[in-house]
């Protein structure tokens, strides 16, 4: 086990006691009692704090006459996600745009963490993508129920032919659960594979050569964050769409 990172130690110093108390109250025992918050969770918290700080700065310095660079970046992100959401979800996409944008930025920054030396990619631990995928699953099902009502949403599962409906219902339920699994494994396996590739690059020739796997990691990070956002938008649009 290597020395824990500075951020891990800081966050454990600040919140470790509370986290350990909560875990003990729920009947769990942290694997490492000195550091109850593990490395990937600490990195996630750093990313989340960074995002909150970014949005706070954008909100506080918002100006129509003189947009500063931070606002320009925020506008670029907004432009990108709104065009994508409008293409996929269509009418009424504004309601879902904050969620998918947050998912995109969070995954993107978590993936980029792996570019720094000695820092693990948080998303290469299976629990991190599972958390995001479970949140997406709950979110789109919630909106499906909100739009169609509980009975109407379940009726979507049954399909159009009434005597096939028991079979279709089972298949649909399994396929909805498999969406969560496939979202998790896609992100986790991609980041793990590219982490391993970076490791192989460093052990092959530690000078200059690892730039290639790191560049690959960079592109894979962007593409996987984009794919995750796109798939959650597609699931949302399928859940809230009306049949004509």
């Amino acid at each position: 086990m290597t020395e824990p990172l500075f951020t891990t130690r800081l966050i454990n110093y600040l919140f470790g006691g509370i986290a350990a108390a909560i875990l003990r109250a729920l009947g769990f025992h942290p694997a490492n009692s000195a550091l109850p918050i593990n490395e990937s969770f600490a990195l996630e918290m750093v990313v989340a704090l960074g995002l909150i700080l970014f949005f706070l700065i954008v909100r506080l310095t918002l100006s129509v006459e003189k947009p500063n660079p931070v606002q320009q970046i925020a506008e670029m992100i907004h432009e990108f996600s709104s065009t994508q959401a409008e293409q996929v979800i269509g009418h009424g996409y504004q309601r879902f745009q904050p969620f998918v944008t947050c998912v995109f930025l969070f995954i993107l920054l978590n993936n980029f963490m792996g570019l720094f030396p000695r820092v693990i990619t948080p998303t290469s631990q299976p629990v991190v993508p599972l958390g995001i995928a479970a949140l997406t699953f709950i979110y789109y099902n919630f909106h499906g129920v909100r739009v169609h009502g509980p009975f109407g949403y379940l009726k979507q599962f049954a399909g159009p032919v009434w005597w096939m409906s028991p079979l279709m219902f089972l298949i649909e339920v399994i396929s909805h659960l498999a969406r969560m699994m496939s979202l998790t494994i896609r992100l986790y396996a991609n980041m793990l594979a590219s982490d391993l590739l970076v490791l192989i690059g460093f052990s092959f020739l530690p000078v200059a050569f690892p730039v290639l796997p790191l560049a690959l990691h960079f592109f894979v990070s962007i593409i996987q964050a984009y794919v995750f956002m796109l798939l959650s938008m597609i699931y949302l649009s399928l859940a809230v769409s009306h049949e004509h």
Partner: protein
Amino acid sequence: MRKLQYVFMVLAALCFAVPVFAQSGSAAIDMAPVGVGLGMGLAAGLCGLGQGRAVGSTTEALARNPGTRAGLLMFMVIGLAFIESLTLFTFAMIIIKVK
């Protein structure tokens, strides 16, 4: 000539058989690397074929009608993600099963 061929074939078979005999007394041979290589090779190769078809037809469509760039790109990325996720399932199974 035919006889010589048989002799060489038997010799080749024995050549591969010798390590098996040598290890018969000790622990079982670890076949996991062979399985990993075969499984990952099959998955990656077939995934490459599938992705090649997808990207090929997308490029063709783009060449015919460059105006559809934005929509096509999105569909291609989704399709590639779905195709490669099958390979990644294999990879995840290997990571879980082989320690």
